C-alpha cells in the first residue's frame, strides 16, 4: 500500500518533516529554524496581535476546550496550565497569557494518534487571563480562564 507515501503527503510542510529534513542534511538549520518557530507570533506584544499571527481560520468560543489551571497562583514563575480539548480532529493547541510582555507561551502540534491533552508550566507577569486556542479541522476554538497571581513571574 502507499500509506507511507500518503502519510508523507499529509504531513508535508509539517514540522516533523522539516525536522527530519534537517536531521538528514537536506535543510540548513537557519532556514529550518524559521519554519519551526513562529517568530512573528512569539514576538507579538499584545493578545490581539498574537492571535492575529496564529489564527488563520474561523474562530469560535469553544465549550469543548477545558483549561486545567489553578484559580490562584502564588508564584507567577511556575503556573501549571493543562489543556484538554474534546472535539475531533485537533491539530494544534496554543497557550497565551494576556498580560505577559509577549503573550504567546507555547504552541503544540498534535499529530493523529496523540490526544488533545497537554500540560505545561508557564510564567505569568501578573493576574491575567490565560487564553487557549485549539485548531481542529481548520477551525479555531478559544477558551480563557482568569488566574490570580500573587507574585509575578517576570522579575527576579
Amino acid at each position, binding site marked *: 500500500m502507499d500509506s507511507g507515501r500518503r502519510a508523507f503527503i499529509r504531513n508535508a510542510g509539517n514540522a516533523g518533516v522539516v*525536522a527530519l529534513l534537517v536531521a538528514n542534511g537536506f535543510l540548513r538549520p537557519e532556514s529550518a529554524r524559521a519554519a519551526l518557530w513562529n517568530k512573528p507570533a512569539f514576538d507579538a506584544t499584545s493578545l490581539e496581535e498574537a492571535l492575529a499571527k496564529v489564527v488563520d481560520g474561523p474562530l469560535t468560543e469553544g465549550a469543548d476546550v477545558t483549561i486545567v489551571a489553578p484559580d490562584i497562583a502564588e508564584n507567577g514563575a*511556575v*503556573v501549571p496550565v493543562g489543556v484538554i480539548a474534546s472535539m475531533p480532529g485537533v491539530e494544534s493547541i496554543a497557550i497565551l497569557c494576556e498580560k*505577559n510582555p509577549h503573550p504567546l507561551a507555547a504552541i*503544540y502540534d498534535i499529530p493523529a494518534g496523540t490526544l488533545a491533552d497537554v500540560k505545561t508550566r508557564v510564567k505569568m507577569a501578573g493576574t491575567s487571563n490565560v487564553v487557549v486556542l485549539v485548531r481542529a479541522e481548520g477551525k479555531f476554538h478559544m477558551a480563557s480562564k482568569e488566574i490570580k497571581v500573587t507574585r509575578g513571574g517576570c522579575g527576579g
Partner: protein
Amino acid sequence: MAKPMKLRARNDGEITDVRILMRHDMETGQRKTQDGDLIPAHYIQNVTVRHGQRVVLFAQWGPAVSKNPFLGFKFRGAAAGDRLEVTWVDNKGDSRTDETIIA
C-alpha cells in the same frame, strides 16, 4: 552544557502517558542583573518527541514557559518496551536528546 532530562512514559495498554522534565534556565531576556544589565534571552524554542520514526508531539515555546520546563501529554499506538526520544533546541542553537523505554 545541557543537563539530562527526566523522562517517564507509562503505557496502560492503549494510551501512553508521557512526562518530561527538562533542565533549562528559560531566561526571558527581560530580567536585569544588579548592575542594570539585561540578561540575554536563552530559552528552548522547539521540543520534538518521537516514537520510532513517528513524531508524536512537536512544541514551539517562547520564554514564558517556566524555568526547568515540564511537559506532559498522551498518545496512542505505542507499547511497553518501545523507545521514546525527546529532543529540544534552544534559541542559541544548543540542543539535547534523551530517550527512555516506555514502561
